[in-house]
Structures are given as structure tokens and as C-alpha cells.
């Protein structure tokens, strides 16, 4: 200690001595950028000393300096400037952009990398693209923006979840959802709803889109290496906005819009249609000698009242429609910072109604992101957000008679929605009037999500730093149900109510060291070692009861008969160690990435809990080679390749243990029964991915993009292997089976015009993915254990869950019977469904080809942005056709059919899509008549806007003002004309009764000052 103080004193004295001798003078000046705008926060240092200052908000600086010394001006993104002090007292500096440091920095998870240092397949989507689509959950905005990524909304209900597949399906029965990373920390997203029947609610919808800086999608083994253990399905890295040093900037974003179903969809039969079809069916069944006599009988029977009332039509599709559903958002943020701190704070409000009555989503959010230099070497940052999301949900995940969406199709048009006096028609029967129920029943779920991400980074030496991050993600969920006692299904119970709540907490601890080893200017190695621990604890509590004493009471306190109560606790833990090495050689001409991750997961037994994952990636930056660097036409040309092993552990908890479950009871007493078969050899599913690609930019980046090929082989699949049910179980999770995905991914961009006034840019991407099962378990006789449903089959040599069913041969023009091919392909036909063989129909429900296109045009302040999305090569199946789209008794008596049924056989010689009508009820028969090409194109976004001239804005004290009108999904093209539903369905590929995707027209304004 004494020595240290001694030296400091000595240095101080020397400095003093020095300054006495030298000729000191005061220098001032202003530092501006290339465009003449003042630069605040520029470091101004006297070279060779530690003395210095920085520019103020207006770019001014003042410093005392000796003649002969040199001032060094440095600022991020600008080339360093040196000025030797001579006679002048004012030194103004214009800094020049440094293209090297300005190179796009891509956040890839635990670290950020420069674009040309990346060896993997990475696509970054910035906020500007994301905000072109108005959605409750930001993942949906990725649709069409990233090659190799297919996004399909599971439901159009606001706040619902989406299916995202990055490069197809990597697993058969384990999860295929990508890993989400927010600000460097793996987080859990998905459906929080505790019900299998009501709308889904996404925890990702808790993120305010206004706060997202960018989303990066990591696709290959090298890119996902940092998350190797969970990287098989790709990684989605979300970066939130941070403050920047400088004057506090305020920003206000507002938009207000109207939505309707993007595709009108099936049109229900009118009562007049039904009368016609019903009469015909009765005649066909031989119950009446002519159609006319059948019609007369109906008009005296079930259609009498309707006829006498002047044949009114119910139009249930209109009655349950929320026309021009409102969507509005408001975001206010402030950001800025001083010398040693930055901040970004925001408030957000989002409100979206569904296109079906009684359903909607609302979100209130706030965030505060701070950084603070505690000492020059220790930086602290804290990102915090809190969100409350509320969704009015409804029964949409099957055919529920109480649901307004089901009512649209299932309710008879003879039942009118309203009485003559305008009150709700409280008719009896299987399907109650949903208009009444929407108004009198309650189904809402809410999520309170709080994420707090805190990290410290300590620069130990110039080349070594240590960091530590602690992240808490709290997801509180509450679901409340109430059914009234006056009308509907709960009348016999005198009303019922239920409430469920879940408190779900995720913790992540990370500790890491970063070390940079520089052999010379040209050779550099960056090391990272990281340790991570993640845990989840989830508590659930729920109860239900019935019998209310009076109306207007909704809570369980007031039920006469409690009917159920349940609570549970689940947890899981993940521990991991990571090592990364990036070697950049010969002035960044060659890049080598190595990674190794060891991860343990509580889903596996202790002996096989840990998995090892690694990757190697290399890039050759050809454009930096001397020969090429001189060619002006080539701005960028690089070759990259990677290979590695990633993992997947996306299975349910406690699958490895043979278990008794106790969640059952008998006769009011607790009971136990075998619940899990168990497999004490269970371990990680792994994927081996090979990637090769070229990135390029030519003619001053007039044309740029990338082309890549990948092959991913997933093996030791965590497969629900079908067991002989004589074991008492249907399946057991085993590490067995193999499948491959191969594909080509192309991203491109044309900078067609780029002048001060005119800008025109056309970009796009397309990708293919081919999926094939290459290995399945066999039984004791060596026979492959295929996994078959009534519509799909999993077998080697085919894509996962390829459609598999009997083939429809059409309607026999002579008899009017629907027929199928006996052998499933051609030749002999049969009218007996059980005689027709089920065969592969080609393709599964996952698109094999996706493409996106975007166009940006601007002239002075006016601009147009457009985005399109194409998905194809897959097939989708129409659900519920037995009840709604077959010429049988259901569509004309019990429920209701679509107008597509009017194309039916009536007499010999008719060529029709539907067979002859009958009043009989047919059993479920699933076949290729209801399987459709899923190809569609959508105009995802079209924005017309105007940026006010900045001079004008300055005068009124505004930074910038942008006004725009935006349309989403304005156009949809569907390949298969017989498909009566919106082609965008969830990845099980079956159309359901969820709300469909919407088209939106919105007006908005963005203001900064």
C-alpha cells in the first residue's frame, strides 16, 4: 500500500512540475458529424495523458492543453481525429464515419457480433419491419421476414399463440417451438391458458412491440451454439430498446384501426336453402314421391312457423360478427442519458377486439431500462418491464355449442337471434343463443408478467472482464369463468363459476468471463466461459362451484355447492457450462468459431442428465482479400460454413420415472394409479446440422443478399414410442428415431434507387424445407412401429405426419353416391368407406416453401412500405365436415351447412362436388375430399405515410412527425378454390372453429421530440 501511494504522489509531483514548465492554453471548439450536426459525448483526450473531457449536448468542448500536445477526438462509429495544438484557440472538428465500426452489430444472444464476423445463419429483423404489422404478439410480425421461418397464427383471437417453425420440424413428438431469448436470457413463452377449451393466451403477448429494438433469428448450429442444448428448433433473440447518451428524446406512437376477417370463409346455408335441400333429401330417401310434395309437407311441419312469419332469415354469421373490430395502440417513451448512465422508459397501451362478438385483448405495459457506470470499470444495467394483459376468451378449441363461432355454422337459420321486441330469443335445444350468453357469462384470463434483468460487468483488465446476470421472470395467471343461471347450459346447476390461478416464476443466473487475446493487430481471439442456472417453479390453484342464490354474483364465495378444488406444484431446473472461442485471423479475413456447451436438465434421470453440444463455424471474408478488395463492384462477398450438435429437451416433466399419479379419486376418496411408464435411460434429443452459405453485396450494395443450404439430422428423438397397450400404456418416451430436414434459404435485396429525394428498395426471401423420417422404432418382429391417426401416418421415407387416408373418387354421376378408390389410388371404386384403403396423400401440414417480399419506396417525406408472404407445398384438412359440409342430415336438420353444399347431385348425369342429399346421419369418414392444397399468398402489410419536413418541425419544437395509414392482410390469394376457410391454420393442419386471421386498416402517427 505504501508503495502504491508513493508512486501516485511521485507521478502527481512530476505532472505538476511538467505543467509548470509547459506553456498551457485554453482550447474550445465544436465537434460535428459529416452532415454538420453537433455530436454530444465525443471523448476529447490529450494524447499520452489521462486527461480529457467530452463534448456537451451541443457538441462544444473546453480543455486546457499545452502547445505541442495532440488532442484525440473519438466517438463510436466515427474515425478518430487527431489535432496538434499550435497557435489556434478554437479547434472545430468534423468527424468522418468509420465504416468498419458502423458495420451492423447483431445481437446473437450472450454476445453481439459484427455482421462479417458471423459464421452462422442469422437473420436480424429490426423494429421498422416488425411494426408494419399490427399484432398483439410480436412473433406474428416475423411472418415473411425471415427465410426458413414459418409462422402461423393458431387463432385470430387477440393475444393467442402462434406456431413458429424454424427450418421445419426437428422432432416428432417432443416440442418444436424455438427457444426465446430476451436481452441475453433464455425465457419461456407459450400458451398460459389453463383450459383446453377456451382461447389460448400467449405470454409473449405481454411484450410491448414498441419496446423491441430488433429480433434476431438464429438458425444453424453455429449461430445457436451458445444455446446448443436447446438450439435444435432455432433461437429467437429479442433485444429491447436501450437509452442513448444525449438529450432526452420523447417518442409517441399512436394508431387506431379496424379489423375484419381476412378471408370471409364459409357461408352458412339460409333457411330457404335448407328447405330446398331438406325436401330434396326426403325425396331422395324415398319418403315422398316428389320434391314438391316433400316441400309441402315441410311447410306444414317444421317450416310452418317460418313460412307464416314471412320467411325471415337468421343470418347468424352477421349476428355473431363484430364488424370493424377496433384495434388501437399507444406507446410513449423517453430515452436519453448522461456521461455515465442511459435510460429508456416507456408506457404502452394496446387494445384489440376480435372479429367475433364478446372477445378481445387489452394490455397495459411499462418498462424501464437503465445502465449506469458504477465506476469506470464496473457497469451495471437493469432492464425491467411489467405488463398486465387481459383477454376475454371464448370456447373455440373444439365445436362448443355455446360458442359464437360455432353458432355461426351450427345454429339452424330457423332460430332467430332476436325477438320482435329486440330482446334475445331464448330458444331451447342443443345450441343456446350465444348472443345472450356473451352478454351474461364471463370467461376472462389475465397475465401479469414482470421481467427484471440485472447485470454487472466488471472490466478486470483491458482484455478480461467478468459479468453476472440475474433475471426474474414472473408470470401470474388468472382465469375466471361464470355461467348464468337463467339461460344456457348452467340452468340445471343454477349457474356455475370457476377460477384458476397460476404463479409461475423463472430464475436465470449467469456468470461469465470474457477474455480477448491479441497476438497482433491482425490476429485476435475472443474467449467466453459462461455458467448458467435456470429454474422454474409453478404453483397452481383452482376451484369450481355451482348454484348461485341470485344473479349478479360471480365468485366462488357465493356458490352453494363447491364442485372441485385443485392445486399443484411443478418445477424444473437446467444447469449449463459454456465455452466459446472466436478466432479472427489475418485482419478478419478468416473467422473461426468454436463452441462447447454442457447442460443438465431435470427432465432426465441423473445418470443421463447431462448432454454435450458443440459446433464449429468458419467464414472466409473474400471481400477482404487483397485481390477482391480492390474491385469496387464487390462490397461484400463471404463464404460461411458450420457444423454442430444441438439438443432438444422439450418434453413433459417427470417422464423418466415410473410413477403413480394421485390426481384421481373414486367415491370421494383419494386414489392412486399408474401414470407414467417411465424410462430410466431417457436423455437428450440431438440434431446434427450442416450449413453452408454465401453472403454478397455488389455494386455499392445495389444487390445484396445471401444463399444458403442446410441439412439437419435429428436423432435419438424424444419419441412417444407407441407401446402395446397390453402394458397398460399407450406410449413411452424413448430416445429413438431419426429425421432429416434439408433446405435452401435465399435472402436478397435490391437498392434500386437511393438518392436524397428518391429511394426504392425491393427485398425478399424464400426458402424450402424437405422433411423426411429416416428411422422409427421397430417391434419385436422387426416391424416398424408406425404412428397412425385417421388422417395422418408417421412412417420412414415420408414427412412427419404425412396425410394418410382413403382417396375420394368423386360423386358417381349415375347414382349420386360418393365413392372411394378401393386400393386408395385408382381403378375400382366403392361406396363402402371401410372397404377403401388409406394411403399417403403427399405432404404434411407444414409448408415446404415460404417466401416473403418487401418493397420500400420514398420520395422526400412520402413513403410506401409493402410486405407479402407466401406459404405453400403443404396440405390442410377441413375439420367438422361431417356436421357442416356433407350432404347429410346434420347440415339440413340438426346443425347447418355451408353454401358449398348447393353444388350437389340431383339427378342422373349430374357432375357435382357433393353426392345426393340424405336425411340420414353419417358416421365420421375422413378422406381426401376434405384435404386441400394449403398454398396461399398474403399482402401482409401495406403502409402509406408521410414524414413532416424537419425544418417545419424544428420551428414548432418537434423532432419528427410521421403520419401513416396501414393495411394488414388486405389481400389473400388461396390456391384451392374448394377450401372454404382461411388457409392459415395451426400446424396440426386442420381447420377449426377458432377466430380466423384478420385484415386491418389503421391510421397512425409517430412523434418524437
Amino acid at each position: 500500500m505504501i508503495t502504491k501511494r508513493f508512486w501516485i504522489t511521485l507521478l502527481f509531483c512530476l505532472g505538476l512540475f511538467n505543467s509548470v514548465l509547459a506553456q498551457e492554453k485554453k482550447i474550445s471548439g465544436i465537434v460535428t458529424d459529416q452532415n454538420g450536426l453537433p455530436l454530444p459525448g465525443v471523448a476529447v483526450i490529450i494524447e499520452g495523458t489521462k486527461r480529457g473531457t467530452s463534448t456537451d449536448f451541443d457538441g462544444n468542448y473546453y480543455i486546457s492543453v499545452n502547445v505541442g500536445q495532440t488532442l484525440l477526438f473519438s466517438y463510436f462509429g466515427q474515425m478518430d481525429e487527431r489535432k496538434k495544438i499550435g497557435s489556434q484557440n478554437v479547434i472545430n472538428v468534423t468527424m468522418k464515419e468509420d465504416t468498419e465500426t458502423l458495420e451492423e452489430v447483431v445481437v446473437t444472444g450472450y454476445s453481439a457480433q459484427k455482421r462479417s464476423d458471423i459464421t452462422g445463419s442469422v437473420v436480424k429483423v429490426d423494429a421498422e419491419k416488425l411494426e408494419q404489422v399490427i399484432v398483439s404478439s410480436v412473433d406474428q410480425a416475423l411472418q415473411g421476414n425471415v427465410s426458413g421461418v414459418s409462422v402461423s397464427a393458431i387463432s385470430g383471437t387477440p393475444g393467442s399463440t402462434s406456431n413458429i417453425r424454424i427450418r421445419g420440424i426437428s422432432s416428432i413428438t417432443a416440442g418444436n417451438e424455438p427457444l426465446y431469448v430476451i436481452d441475453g436470457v433464455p425465457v419461456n413463452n407459450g400458451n398460459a391458458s389453463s383450459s383446453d377449451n377456451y382461447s389460448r393466451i400467449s405470454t409473449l403477448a405481454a411484450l410491448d412491440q414498441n419496446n423491441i429494438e430488433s429480433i434476431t433469428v438464429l438458425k444453424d448450429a453455429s449461430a445457436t451454439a451458445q444455446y446448443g442444448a436447446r438450439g435444435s428448433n432455432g433461437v429467437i433473440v429479442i433485444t429491447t430498446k436501450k437509452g442513448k447518451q444525449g438529450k432526452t428524446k420523447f417518442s409517441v406512437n399512436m394508431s387506431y384501426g379496424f379489423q375484419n376477417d381476412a378471408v370471409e370463409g364459409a357461408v352458412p346455408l339460409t333457411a330457404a336453402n335448407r328447405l330446398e335441400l331438406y325436401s330434396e333429401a326426403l325425396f331422395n330417401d324415398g319418403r315422398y314421391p316428389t320434391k314438391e310434395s316433400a316441400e309441402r309437407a315441410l311447410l306444414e311441419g317444421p317450416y310452418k312457423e317460418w313460412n307464416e312469419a314471412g320467411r325471415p332469415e337468421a343470418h347468424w354469421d352477421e349476428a355473431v360478427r363484430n364488424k370493424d373490430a377496433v384495434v388501437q395502440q399507444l406507446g410513449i417513451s423517453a430515452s436519453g442519458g448522461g456521461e455515465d448512465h442511459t435510460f429508456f422508459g416507456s408506457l404502452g397501451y394496446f387494445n384489440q377486439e376480435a372479429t367475433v362478438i364478446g372477445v378481445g385483448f387489452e394490455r397495459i405495459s411499462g418498462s424501464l431500462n437503465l445502465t449506469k457506470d458504477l465506476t469506470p470499470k464496473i457497469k451495471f444495467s437493469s432492464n425491467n418491464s411489467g405488463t398486465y394483459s387481459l383477454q376475454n376468451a371464448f370456447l373455440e378449441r373444439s365445436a362448443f355449442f355455446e360458442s359464437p363461432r360455432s353458432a355461426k355454422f351450427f345454429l339452424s337459420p330457423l332460430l332467430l337471434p332476436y325477438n320482435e321486441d329486440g330482446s334475445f330469443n331464448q330458444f331451447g335445444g342443443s345450441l343456446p343463443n350465444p348472443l345472450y350468453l356473451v352478454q351474461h357469462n364471463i370467461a376472462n384470463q389475465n397475465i401479469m408478467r414482470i421481467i427484471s434483468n440485472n447485470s454487472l460487468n466488471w472490466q478486470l483488465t483491458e482484455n478480461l472482464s467478468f459479468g453476472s446476470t440475474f433475471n426474474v421472470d414472473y408470470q401470474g395467471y388468472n382465469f375466471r369463468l361464470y355461467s348464468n343461471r337463467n339461460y344456457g347450459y348452467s340452468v340445471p346447476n343454477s349457474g356455475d363459476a370457476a377460477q384458476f390461478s397460476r404463479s409461475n416464476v423463472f430464475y436465470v443466473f449467469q456468470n461469465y468471463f470474457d477474455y480477448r487475446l491479441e497476438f497482433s493487430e491482425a490476429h485476435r481471439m475472443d474467449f467466453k466461459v459462461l455458467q448458467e442456472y435456470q429454474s422454474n417453479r409453478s404453483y397452481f390453484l383452482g376451484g369450481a362451484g355451482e348454484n348461485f342464490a341470485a344473479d349478479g354474483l360471480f365468485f366462488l364465495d357465493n356458490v352453494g355447492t363447491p364442485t372441485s378444488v385443485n392445486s399443484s406444484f411443478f418445477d424444473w431446473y437446467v444447469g449449463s457450462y459454456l465455452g466459446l472461442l472466436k478466432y479472427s485471423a489475418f485482419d478478419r479475413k478468416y473467422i473461426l468459431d468454436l463452441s462447447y456447451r454442457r447442460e443438465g436438465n431435470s427432465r432426465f434421470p441423473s445418470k443421463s442428465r447431462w448432454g454435450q453440444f458443440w459446433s464449429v463455424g468458419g467464414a472466409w471474408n473474400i471481400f477482404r482479400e487483397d485481390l477482391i478488395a480492390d474491385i469496387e463492384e464487390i462490397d461484400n462477398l463471404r463464404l460461411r460454413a458450420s457444423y454442430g450438435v444441438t439438443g432438444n429437451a422439450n418434453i413433459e416433466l417427470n417422464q423418466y420415472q415410473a410413477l403413480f399419479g394421485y390426481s384421481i379419486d373414486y367415491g370421494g376418496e383419494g386414489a392412486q394409479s399408474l401414470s407414467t411408464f417411465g424410462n430410466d435411460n431417457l436423455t437428450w434429443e440431438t440434431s446434427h446440422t450442416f450449413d453452408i452459405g454465401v453472403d454478397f453485396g455488389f455494386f455499392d450494395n445495389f444487390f445484396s443478399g445471401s444463399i444458403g443450404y442446410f441439412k439437419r439430422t435429428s436423432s435419438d428423438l424424444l419419441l412417444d414410442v407407441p407401446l402395446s397397450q397390453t402394458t397398460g400404456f399407450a406410449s413411452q418416451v424413448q430416445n429413438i428415431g431419426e429425421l432429416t430436414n434439408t433446405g435452401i434459404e435465399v435472402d436478397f435485396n435490391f437498392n434500386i434507387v437511393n438518392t436524397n429525394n428518391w429511394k426504392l428498395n425491393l427485398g425478399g426471401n424464400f426458402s424450402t424445407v424437405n422433411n423426411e423420417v429416416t428411422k422409427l422404432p421397430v417391434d419385436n418382429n422387426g416391424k416398424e412401429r408406425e404412428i397412425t391417426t385417421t388422417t395422418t401416418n408417421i412412417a420412414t421415407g415420408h414427412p412427419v405426419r404425412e396425410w394418410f387416408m382413403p382417396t375420394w373418387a368423386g360423386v358417381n354421376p349415375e347414382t349420386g353416391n360418393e365413392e372411394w378408390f378401393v386400393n386408395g389410388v385408382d381403378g375400382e371404386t366403392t361406396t363402402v368407406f371401410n372397404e377403401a384403403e388409406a394411403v399417403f396423400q403427399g405432404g404434411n401440414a407444414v409448408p415446404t416453401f415460404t417466401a416473403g417480399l418487401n418493397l420500400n419506396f420514398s420520395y422526400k417525406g412520402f413513403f410506401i412500405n409493402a410486405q407479402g408472404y407466401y406459404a405453400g407445398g403443404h396440405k390442410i384438412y377441413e375439420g367438422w365436415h361431417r356436421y357442416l359440409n356433407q350432404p347429410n342430415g346434420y347440415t339440413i336438420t340438426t346443425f347447418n351447412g355451408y353454401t358449398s353444399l348447393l353444388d350437389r347431385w340431383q339427378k342422373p348425369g349430374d357432375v357435382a362436388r357433393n353426392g345426393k342429399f340424405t336425411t340420414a346421419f353419417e358416421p365420421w369418414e375422413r378422406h381426401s375430399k376434405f384435404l386441400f392444397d394449403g398454398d396461399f399468398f398474403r399482402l401482409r402489410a401495406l403502409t402509406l405515410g408521410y414524414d413532416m419536413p424537419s425544418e417545419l418541425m424544428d420551428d414548432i419544437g418537434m423532432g419528427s412527425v410521421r403520419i401513416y395509414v396501414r393495411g394488414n392482410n388486405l389481400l389473400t390469394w388461396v390456391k384451392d378454390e374448394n377450401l372454404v376457410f382461411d388457409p392459415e391454420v395451426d400446424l396440426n393442419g386442420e381447420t377449426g372453429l377458432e377466430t380466423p386471421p384478420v385484415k386491418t386498416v389503421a391510421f397512425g402517427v409517430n412523434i418524437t421530440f
Partner: protein
Amino acid sequence: MKKISYSLFTLVLLLLGACSTDSLDPTLSQSRSVEDGIVNVDNLHGILKGAHNIMSAAGYYGRDLIVNNEVRSDNCFSNGNSGRFSTQAEYLYNENTDYIWNNAYNLLANVNVIIGANLSSLDGNQEQGRHIQGQAMVLRALAHYDLLRVFGQQHTKSGGSLGVPIVTTFNGDDLFPKRSSIDEVKAAIYDDLETAYGMMDTSFDTSKTIVSKYVAKALEARVAIYFGDWDRALTASEVVIDSGMYGIIGADAFVNSWTGPGTVNVIFELAYSNADNLGPDAISNIYRFPGDAPGGYGDVQVVSDLIELYEENDVRRDILGYQDSGTRLRNMKKYPDTATGTDNIPLFRYEEVILNYAEALFETGGNALAQLNLITANRGASAYVTVTKEDILKERRKELMFEGFRFDDLTRTGMDIEILGSLENSLGKVEYPSNLLAYPIPLSEINANSNVVQNAGY
């Protein structure tokens, strides 16, 4: 500064240390490992209750096994109101049509755990342990019988002899068992029932909602009747009758007995309550609409002229009723609670034992008349003067209607069955013997275990 660095360093070490294999052990809160799940006799009782819960599911005795045997018979048809049971009623099932295969084998897995438990290693009353193992064995016999009568080839045209795989251990050596022959399965059933009867002690039988000692004999009689083992049926029935524990319910109480738990005629029934019921999938909801007009499910409708079967004063006529403005004949009073489905479902009634006894007596030359008239006397029906086989079957039909016996009575006596469509229209006949009388083995089983041979015709 030094302090900070030390504490940081310590923190790092702590966290690194925290990441060991053991620290990643998950908590088992709602479940227990199979080893920890059986430590005393009481646990065996817990598994036994769990086994009853499996039986009470809608896919098994809660609905499907009973209703399938009614809609495929001349008692009922499916009107298709909610699309349920029309596939079965119209004999259109295929290998994708789910039936009790998974439920019954799941039941077997659980009861085999009880039977396989080493009693002496468990705490608690050993006698009670033996009794529980006996109860489990009765259920094992029941599951094998259910599988055999649904999937066995005893009534198929091709004259097959295949029964179903016999499973007597949980997670045993052979996870891909073959189908045993009909005779082997039958022998295993009788064997289990005899052993079980010997192991059980009525002092441990405290509830009618848990399988009891005399269920072993009642089931034995039922199986024996099915296969025409008349002597065995005779003696087994007599044991139940001689126990003196049960009686025929009187005419006045008959209809109401379907609402109350554990009346005198009930030997064994499945428990349902306000807190534990099948909701919309309850058997009551398939037999009728919740109100008079079409609504809910209510697919299973009674053949219109069936009401003629009963005499005017027969109390069993009151089980029937009409819905939809008097146009649809219905089972209104067996399993009556349509609101929540809280009625217990009797699986063994004393009346069935008497009818089995009467039939066995008839076949062996005994006095069937007296037994048969015990039934009619308690139903307000005229007594028989003479007895034919047809009389016995007719009385069975009248007494056990809607309880899932009719299909087996038709097939075991080799009768043809008329197929009715959703409008009660005739769709032809299933002529005995027929491949349609054996259900297809589920495709999932065939896919997973190629040792199992599919029934002919599927």
C-alpha cells in the same frame, strides 16, 4: 474494492457449485415413484380405488361398454343427434374406432401391481392385504372377460379361436404378448375368480362401490352363462344366493332404486357423485336430451315398439318414456340424473344372478320356473306358467334393458341382429356368425405389436 472482488468471487464459486447433478433433481409433488408408492397395505387399497376409477371412465363402464351393447342390439339405435354411437349402431366401426382395449389393459396394469406386490414386505394388516389382492384378481378377471367378449373370435364367421392377450404382470418380461386362445382366456378368468374367492374375507367388504367377495361368484356365473358352462353357472349363482346378503328389489322401489345408492339388489356398483362425475359424457346424457326438445347428446334412442314388450302393470315399463313431444321413445329412469350424472352405475345386480341361475337350471333340467317368477312377482308382471329358453331371454331383456347385456345375449344364442340407421330405418342384418361381432383390434396395437393378429374383416 478488494471486498467486492472477494464477495463476487465467492458468489461465483457458490453458483458454480450449485450446478451439480443433484441440484437438478425435480420435485415430485403430485406423484410418487412406483417404489415409493407401495409401502403399506393401505397403498394397495389406494391402487384398488384407482382401478375402480379407471372402470368408471366414459370409455369403459361409465358409458361406452354399456351403450355399445345396447345400440348394437334390437333395443336401441343412434339417432345421430350429436354424432355419437352411430358408427357403432350401424356396424361401421373400423380399426380406428376406439373402444375399451386401452381402458381394460390399463385396468389390468394397475390390478397386476396389486396382485404382484410382496405382501410380507408391506406394513399393515396382512389379511386385509390378501383380501385386496383377491379384489384385484376379480377385476383382472372382469377386464379379461370384457376384452374377450368384445375382441374374441367366438362369434366370427371365419371360426377363429383367438381370444385376447392375457396379462398378469405389470411391466413384465413380455411386452409384446400374443393373443391367447378363447379357451385359455376363459380358463384364466375362472382361475382368477376361484383364487380370488378363496382369498377374500367378507369382513373387509364395507362398500357396494368397491368390488366384494360375492362379485367373484356373480361374475363367474355371468361368464359361465356366456360360454354355456351351465354347471359352473349353477354352482356359482347358488353361492351368491346362499350368501343371503342380497335380494330382489320390490316393484314399488324398482324405479326409484336407480337414483339411490346401494339398494338391496345391488352387489357391486360404480360410484359417482356431485364432485366426481362424467359431466356431459355421463351415460344419462346419451340416453336422453336434457329437456324434452332435442338438445345435448341424447343419441341413443329406444326402438319404438319396445314398449309393447311390457305389460301394462309392469313397473319396468315406467323406465321408458317419451321426449320431443312424445315422438321419441327413451330410457328415462335408468341412470336418471341428466343434470350432472351423479347416479351410481350398478354392474352386478342380484336380479341378474337369479336370471343366470334360472337359465342354468333350465339348461341342466332344474326348476327354472320358480326362479323366473321371482322376478315377475317383483315387477307387477304376470307369472310364467311354463318356461322356455325364449322366456328366459325375454325376461332378461326386460329386466336388464339399457344395462349392456342384450348384445351378448343375442350373440351367445346365435341370433341375427337388425341394423338400424339414424331414422330407425333398417340398414340390413348382421347374420350370425359374423366378423362384425368381434371388434377390430385398435390399429395402434397392431402398429406397436405385430404379435397381435387382427380379426378377420378389418
